Each structure stands twice: as C-alpha cells, then as structure tokens.
C-alpha cells in the first residue's frame, strides 16, 4: 500500500509503505503542514509504516531539516525495529549536503591559467629538446630504442596517409585552377594558370595541406596513444624499467614523420599541379605539354627547397605537440579525448603560425 500521511493538529502519522515512488508526494504534503506551523512541534507517528527504503529514510531526514528551517521541531515516534534500522543505515545526518568543490575567483583562475600555460610551454620546450637529443643520439646508438618501430610508424604515418593526402591535393590544385581560370581567361592570360598552380602548390599549398592532414590524422594518433599509455601507467612502467619514454616512443614517430612529411609534400605538390593541368586542359584549351613546360620553367630551386624545409618543420611541430599533449593528460578516458582534441587544434594552429613565419623569412 502506498504511504498515506494523515495530519491532525500537532501530530501526524504515516501508514503503508514509504518508498521511492511516494517521496515527492509525501514531501509536498509535509511541506504544506510545516508551512502553517511556525515555532511548534510536529510529532510524526511511524508505527503504521510497514515498509521503508532509502528514499523514505532520506525523505524523513529532509522533513526534519525543512522543519528546522521553519523553526518546527519534527519528532518521529513509534517506528518498528525494521524501520528504525533502515533509517539508521540510510541516515544522511542533519544538514547533509554533498560537499561543493571550492570555486576560485577570477583573479585566481587567471593566475592558475597563466601558470599552467607557462609550465606547459616549458615542458614543451623540454620535450622538444629531449626529442632532438635522442633523435641524434639514436643515429649513433640503437640502445633504448625499439626494433622495427621506425618502419611501423613510417607505414602508419606515411603510407596509410597517402590516399587522403593525394586526393585532397588533387582537388586543391583543381579548385585553385578553376578559381583563377575564371579571372585569367578575361585577360587572355590562360597560360599563367600553370605558373600560379605550380608556385602555390610548391611553396604553400603542398606542404600546408599535407601538414594539416597529418596534424589531424597522425598528430591525434600520437597524442591519444601516448595519453592512453600515460593514464594506464604504461609510461610509468617504462620509466621504472629504466627506459626513456621519449627515446622509446616519441623518437621513432619523429623519424617517421620527419621522413614521410617531405615525401608526402612532394607528392601532394605534383598531384596538385596535375589537378590544375586537367582543369587547364578541359576549360582553358591549354595542352598538357604547354602547361607542363610553363610549370617547370616558373619553378625555382628556392621554391622546392622552402617547401621541403617547411614540411620538415611542420613534421617536428606535429610530432612534439602530439607527444606533449599526450604526456600532459589528466583524468581517465575523458582526459584522453580532451587532450587529443586539444593537440589537433594546437598542432594546426602552430603549423599555420609557422607557415606565416617562414613566408616572412623566405620571401620578404
């Protein structure tokens, strides 16, 4: 039988079974009774209760608390042993409230953010230095490394990324050609489409698009792998075995990405130029031979070298940023997801900033 609350003057009694489904209704009835009883006592007879659960026990505690707030003393009497025992087990105590997490003030939060950002930056520099050190040391001695890791990573980062890099580069080349063709055709300058595509792909779009794709694909994989290893204490296990995690985990990825990125970048540039060639052939009546000759003539060694230098620098940034976020992870599975997202955003941001920096150095 559901709980029934009967209130007569300064006393009340509850009958039946006081369980979760009754809590809201009975609490509302008590609330109405308490509202008209300031400064008095409400004696509640529990002898009619046949059953109670933790919901009912919490309700009785809540009524006591709310009564106290209205200066009404609520006293429970007549509970059978069973009901009294369950009330004892599930008692939340007077004024029980889940402890609140202390909320810092704005100034304190700014300070904490600034401190963490600075500490993170220093850690990033340290990791970068460690990665470079162990990368050069690894060329001299194989000690501390993992056999076959470089090949595995090169396949993962380079070969597996090839289809997506080539498809996107081809489309980027075609899009650039289509956009520029519409303008150049008006001036009879069709031939300059080849110049524009060749220069922009070699200097800019080839390395940049490859870097952005690898930041999303390989950077996230690096961050999530290292973050998972951190939260599952695999990194600690390596340290206690006397193995440097940077040497063991990061360096093979660094070698792989540093080798694969320029190669992918060259292929991306060639495929982008090919995308432009097809548009030029179909819409601008340029023959492939003329387009190719023009593209080759306009490209200088400097264009190719700057593209390659940039792609190696982007590779280093993507790898170290991914590893940095992986090592800094906090929390469990939730933290891994958060840090992976943050690493991709940071890597793409860093690549674009670095690209801007290189453009200033090489061309101004």
């Amino acid at each position, binding site marked *: 039988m559901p709980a029934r609350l009967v209130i007569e003057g300064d006393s009340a009694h509850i009958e039946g079974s006081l369980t979760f489904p009754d809590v809201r209704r009975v609490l509302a009835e008590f609330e109405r009774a308490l509202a008209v009883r300031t400064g008095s006592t409400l004696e509640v007879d529990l002898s009619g209760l046949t059953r109670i659960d933790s919901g009912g026990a919490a309700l009785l505690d809540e009524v006591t608390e709310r009564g106290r707030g209205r200066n009404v003393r609520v006293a429970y009497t007549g509970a059978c042993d069973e009901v009294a025992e369950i009330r004892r087990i*599930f008692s939340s105590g007077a004024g029980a409230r889940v402890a609140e997490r202390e909320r810092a003030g704005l100034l304190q939060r700014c300070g904490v953010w600034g401190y963490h950002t600075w500490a993170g930056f220093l850690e990033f520099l340290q990791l970068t230095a460690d990665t470079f050190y162990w990368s050069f040391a690894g060329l001299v001695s194989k000690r501390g490394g993992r056999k076959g890791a470089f090949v595995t990573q090169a396949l993962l980062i380079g070969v597996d990324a090839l289809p997506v890099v080539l498809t996107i580069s081809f489309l980027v080349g075609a899009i650039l050609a289509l956009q520029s063709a519409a303008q150049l055709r008006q001036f009879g300058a069709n031939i300059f489409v080849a110049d524009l595509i060749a220069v922009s792909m070699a200097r800019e779009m080839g390395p940049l698009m490859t870097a952005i794709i690898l930041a999303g694909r390989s950077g996230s994989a690096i961050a999530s792998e290292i973050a998972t290893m951190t939260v599952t204490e695999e990194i600690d296990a390596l340290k206690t075995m006397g193995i440097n995690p940077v040497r063991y985990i990061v360096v093979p990825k660094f070698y792989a990405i540093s080798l694969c990125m320029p190669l992918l970048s060259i292929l991306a540039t060639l495929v982008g130029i090919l995308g432009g060639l097809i548009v030029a052939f179909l819409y601008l009546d340029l023959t492939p031979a003329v387009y190719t000759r023009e593209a080759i003539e306009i490209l200088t060694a400097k264009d190719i070298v700057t593209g390659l230098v940039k792609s190696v620098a982007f590779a280093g940034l993507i790898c170290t940023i991914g590893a940095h976020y992986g090592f800094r992870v906090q929390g469990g599975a939730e933290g891994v997801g958060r840090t992976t997202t943050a690493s991709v955003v940071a890597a793409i941001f860093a690549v674009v900033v670095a690209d801007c920096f290189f453009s200033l150095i090489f061309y101004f």
Partner: protein
Amino acid sequence: MDKPHPIAEVQSLSAGFGGRSVLEDINLDIHEGEILVVLGKSGCGKSTLLKHMVGLLKPSAGSVRLFGIDIFAADEPEMVEVLKKVGVLFQYGALLNSLYVHENVAIPLEQHTDVPPSVIRRLVEAKLGLVRLTGTGHLLPSELSGGMRKRAALARALALDPDILFADEPSAGLDPMTTAHQDDLLLELREDLGMTMVVVTHELASIHRIADRIAFLEDKKILFLGTVSDAKGCGVEIVEEFFRMGTFA
C-alpha cells in the same frame, strides 16, 4: 519449509566469444535474500557469467530469468523495469569519468525516480556514507584511488535499493579493514532490505563472511554448488585445494 522463490534463474546457458566456448550448460537458481559467491580461476568465465545474468552479453544457448522475466526475450520497457531492480558493480567500477562522484551516484535516482533534488542530494550523501566515502562527492573519479572508485561504484549500484546486486570483485584493491566493512555492509543490506546478491570474489575471508552458497566454475561448467562448509569436504580436488591454499591469482 519451502525454498524461497528464485529471483534469478540461469537455465542451460552456454556462451563463448568468436567460436571459443567459455560457458557450457550452466544451470543456477538464486533465491531471494541469499548471497551467492561465484568462484573460479582467472579467465574461467566468472565475469562472463555475470554479464550474461544482467543481459549485457547474449548467450549462444539457454536463458536467464530475472524476477521471472526472460531477459533475452523481454522488450526494452520490460527490460528497463527489470534493470531498475538490479544493481551492478563492475570489476573496474565503470564510473563516468566526466561526472563528479555525486553526479555518478545520482544518475539512477534522476533517471528512474521523481524524487526532488534536495532528497537526491541527501540520498547520495547517505549512499556515499554507506561505503565510507562521505565528503568525496565533489571529486572526479580520476581523483579517487582504485579502491575508492570501486566503493563509489558500489554506492551508485545501491542508489535505488536494488532487489538484487551483482558485484564483480567488490573487494579487489581494498585493504582488509575496508573489505571487512564492505562485507558487513552487504550482510546488513541483505538483512534489512532482503537484498539478494551474486558476488564474484577471490577473497577467502570475504567468502567465509558473506557466502550462503558458492558456485565454483571450472572448465566451462559449475563444478560445485553448495555451502562453504560443504565445499571444504566435497571431494572435488580443486575446490578443496582452493579453501586449503587461499586464493587464486
């Protein structure tokens, strides 16, 4: 005297993964108010059996009935009603890492009852108090130790005063005093709420304290089913050895 009605029934249950058989023809009745402890070597299928009993895994043959309902034939609303009366404590706690401890414990209360928030807060603190975690509600699971996470998960499993509790290694990672307290709590819940429990554990001391019956799994089958005192002289070598040696790894 008549035996209490079985609250959970496992009938001719067989299960496996990718063609590899893990359990074969398991039959088990769990009676209202009893504590059944499932034992066996690591990897013998204890957790698999538990997951089949709560409907997380589907058997290759056989059925599981909870409160008289075949959980693999039940539709979703029927299953939800069954699950409201079931509490599950997972081997690694399975707290939601993105939520605070008090939010984790409050999930079943918010989803399955219309209890006002003030009473939910009170209930959460009471349940955390039961498992000796008073005052930790504002922490994230990642800020708790392994043992504390396990206890917080137990508080969540107990949120709705379930009729039956399935617990996968509830004492793993706990110190002996906390284990003893947790055993006392389980006994108290059985005594006062009539809660039925199926517990997977290797802790010999716990088994002695809480088990009404044990089911010993070995080689895909239940090798022994009975009381602890019967187990010690049951004539099955591996079962007797377990109680002589202590615990399996």
